[in-house]
């Protein structure tokens, strides 16, 4: 065994065990590796190829030699050797790669030299550059998602394909095309300049929340991977929050995801049926995630800058999270937060949710008045949530006939059988049940 190699156990590690250890190392190291290499060679695709080459070498060597003490540095050194080989072979190097070749050769002669130290300092910045690159607006949203999960999340193409229920081949092509698009558009590997920073950060947050919702709303598929997407999104969010700690919306998004994820195990009844927020067993909420979510909200507030839509949504979720029982919910604060949300992004859906809050805080009549104002809203046409809310409020006011008609209308708009059945059951139960529990936001 080499001097720098740590002994895992007395006997040599089996190939399978080594393979598993290498998988784990890859998940931990790949983003930093690819980020560092991209900064060096100036091309994301080439950087990933080099990193993959290094992984192949590791798969050959580590089962024999054991996992090195510092596997990340080992992979980086190996990838750099491959880069050097590549540059030596190719005769046509542009200026930039000519310079790089010279640097790599110097480093090759003096591997303990300063470049290693310099490299470490860059890691945080490199990761941030990587996030901004994989979430670049030049890419289609699904391409951003795939590239981010693969390069930043360290997921394999197969895992991503399985999570998004698309064939592996489709996903492979999506990633290849994305890398080509970045190259052709000459997207610089950089943290965007202040003039673009806002829009670019928004794109990063959007990608993360898209991943989260893909797992959270689980539109189809029974694979464990889909809910695991919530975990991947949370992890990405937590990473970006440390990379860009000065951005209130990053913490806002993390808060929103932590608090929504805290309800994961309370969202389904024993038979798999959905359980609405107000009916959930709050003891089943994950209070560690709630605490983390509340802390993230405070962290954003402490920055003393204007708070954006993710923060506001997180703060609304927090109103529910803080309430020990549904009756304890601070609906007045929820209404105030929806007011603020409607300011930063006016949307009929926000208005509808606000109306629910108003009904809870100030009575069904006040809520109904707002809902009536939304009926002609084209964006809500065909959206069964509107008649469903309307029905609730009408029922609370004792107007059962109208409520039933609304529920039947809602059922006709429902997107699946389960939903339809639930709505029709509510309609059936109407005259007997004087009060129907509101479906809060």
């Amino acid at each position, binding site marked *: 065994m080499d001097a720098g190699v740590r002994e895992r156990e007395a006997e040599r590690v089996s190939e399978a065990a080594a393979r598993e250890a290498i998988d784990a190392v890859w998940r931990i190291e790949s983003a930093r590796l690819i980020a560092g290499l991209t900064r060096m060679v100036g091309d994301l695709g080439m950087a990933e190829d080099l990193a993959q080459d290094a992984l192949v070498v590791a798969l050959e060597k580590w089962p024999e030699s054991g996992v090195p003490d510092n596997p990340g540095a080992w992979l980086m050194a190996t990838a750099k050797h491959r880069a050097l080989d590549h540059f030596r072979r190719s005769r046509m190097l542009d200026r930039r790669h000519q310079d790089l070749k010279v640097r790599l050769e110097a480093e090759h002669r003096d591997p303990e030299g300063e470049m290693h130290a310099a490299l470490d300092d860059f890691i945080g910045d490199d990761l941030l550059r990587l996030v901004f690159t994989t979430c670049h607006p030049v890419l289609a949203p699904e391409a951003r998602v795939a590239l981010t999960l693969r390069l930043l999340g360290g997921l394999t193409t197969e895992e991503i394909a399985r999570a998004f229920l698309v064939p592996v081949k489709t996903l492979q092509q999506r990633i290849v095309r994305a890398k080509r698009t970045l190259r052709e558009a000459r997207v610089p590997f950089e943290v965007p300049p202040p003039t673009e920073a806002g829009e670019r950060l928004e794109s990063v947050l959007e990608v993360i929340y898209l991943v989260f919702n893909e797992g959270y709303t689980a539109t189809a598929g029974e694979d464990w991977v889909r809910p695991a997407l919530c975990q991947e999104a949370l992890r990405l969010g937590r990473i970006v929050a440390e990379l860009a700690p000065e951005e209130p919306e990053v913490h806002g998004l993390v808060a929103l995801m932590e608090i929504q994820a805290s309800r994961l195990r309370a969202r389904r009844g024993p038979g798999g049926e959905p359980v*609405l927020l107000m009916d959930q067993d709050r003891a089943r909420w994950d209070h560690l995630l709630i605490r983390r979510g509340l802390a993230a909200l405070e962290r954003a507030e402490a920055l003393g800058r204007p708070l954006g839509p993710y923060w506001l949504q997180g703060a609304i979720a927090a109103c529910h999270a803080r309430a020990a029982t549904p009756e304890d919910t601070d609906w007045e604060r929820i209404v105030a937060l929806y007011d603020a949300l409607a300011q930063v992004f006016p949307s009929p859906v926000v208005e509808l949710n606000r109306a629910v809050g108003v009904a809870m805080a100030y009575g069904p009549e006040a809520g109904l008045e707002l809902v009536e104002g939304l009926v002609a809203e084209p964006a809500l046409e065909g959206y069964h949530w509107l008649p469903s809310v309307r029905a609730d409020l009408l029922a609370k006011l004792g107007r059962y006939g109208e409520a039933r008609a609304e529920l039947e209308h809602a059922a006709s708009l429902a997107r699946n059988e389960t939903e339809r059945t639930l709505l029709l059951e509510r309609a059936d139960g109407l005259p007997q049940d004087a009060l129907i529990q509101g479906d809060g936001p």
Partner: protein
Amino acid sequence: MRVLVIVKASDESEAGIMPNTELLSAMGNYNEELVKAGVMLMGEGLATSAEGKRVRFEGKKRTVIDGPFAETKELIAGFWLWQVRSMNEAVEWLRRAPFDGGTEVEIRRVFEADDFGEEFTPELREQEERVWTQASENAKRNG
């Protein structure tokens, strides 16, 4: 998956001897790395078992036993809660921790089978969450 990473007590920790500055700073860096990677959910160090109590249950009887407790190696000096993708990943992270001197650290999987899995049957979605998705989609359209 979540894992509980349990740092066992040592004679030093039980004697209330604080780690030296070097180790503290190495541990600080390590914790920072865990946070930056989105792995650490929480982590705490514990006071010596001299400050601890045990309650023994027998039938209706409750007996309170004061610390310190003898079996040092079985005691806990601190713990982390990590969110990882696999036990292997947890092992790989733990290998990077700056412990020494024969310290043993144990990794245990936290049960959370009911969080994910069969509950996420297709076609079953909750209205509330869909509204959020819708709201964010609308936000994108309007923003």
